[in-house]
């Protein structure tokens, strides 16, 4: 008995899923009807379709003495039509890379960021660049060593 009930319920569920609902009946008095088809902004599981990702480099090494250093990251954005993706690259505000040869001793190397802010359209698959500029004077006056700083990538969605 349970098997029969289970089978019946299964069939009912299958029909509930498979059969389209009918809204209007056409006959001699009503020979034309229309149906609107529209897309949702969520997928079949109900998940929001809007998505983006950026892939940033783990680390970048700058050759000693090189003034303009391009760093590349990739963007994959699929947004609502009136949304844009902002990507901003920042440092701690000091605009210096640090070199600590020994505990308590620190040297700095000044640099600046160019093209550190970028905005991407709702459908973008691209590579983007920004530049770490180290002036010749900075290189020439610095103690040779391995200087480092941390750059932070921040993303945000804005309504255009």
């Amino acid at each position: 008995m349970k098997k029969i009930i289970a089978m019946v319920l299964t069939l009912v569920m299958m029909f509930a899923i498979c059969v389209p609902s009918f809204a209007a009946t056409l006959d001699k008095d009503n020979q034309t009807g229309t149906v609107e088809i529209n897309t949702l902004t969520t997928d079949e599981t109900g998940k929001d379709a809007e998505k983006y990702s950026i892939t940033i480099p783990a680390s970048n090494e700058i050759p000693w003495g090189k003034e303009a250093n391009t760093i590349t990251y990739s963007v994959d954005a699929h947004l609502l039509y009136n949304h844009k993706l902002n990507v901003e690259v920042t440092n701690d505000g000091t605009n210096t890379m640090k070199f600590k040869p020994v505990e308590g001793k620190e040297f700095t190397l000044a640099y600046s960021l160019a093209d550190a802010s970028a905005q991407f359209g709702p459908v973008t698959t691209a590579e983007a660049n920004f530049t770490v500029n180290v002036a010749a004077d900075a290189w020439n006056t610095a103690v040779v060593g391995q200087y480092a700083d941390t750059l932070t990538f921040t993303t945000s969605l804005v309504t255009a």
Partner: protein
Amino acid sequence: MKKIIATALALVMILAVSVPAFAVDINQGSVSKEANVDVKTSYDEQADTWYTVSIPADTSIPWNQAKAKDVSYQVACQLATGKKLQVTVTSQNGNSLNSTSGSNDKLSYAAAGFGAQTFEAKTGEKTILVAPSVPVTLTVSGWNSVPVGEYKDTLTYTVAVI
């Protein structure tokens, strides 16, 4: 005199309506003792034929759905001999879903079962409608090429007896 004529005409009319027409008399003097009578049905095409076509409700397609969306109709009809029922499905936007945001973005789709499909004079029953031999479906592609949003088309279902 007028009353007599009127009465006579009334009688003639009554007889014409109610009395079956006798074409052949068979009696003892008849050469042939048999005669044929044709029996046939009659119909009023306007009143006696019918058809019903159920069309789907407005429908939504989840974003990124790759499988075909069924927008089939169902049919039952009883028409005059030699007639067929034709159901035509057309797209307002030429088989594409247009952005409702005001942009020119479009999602095209592959249509199956659109255009005209015909059904025999006797198809289904009044309570048992049948689906067309080619299901009416649309399969949307190009989801990754357009901004996420609402895209829309209007399908028109038209019925004609041919």
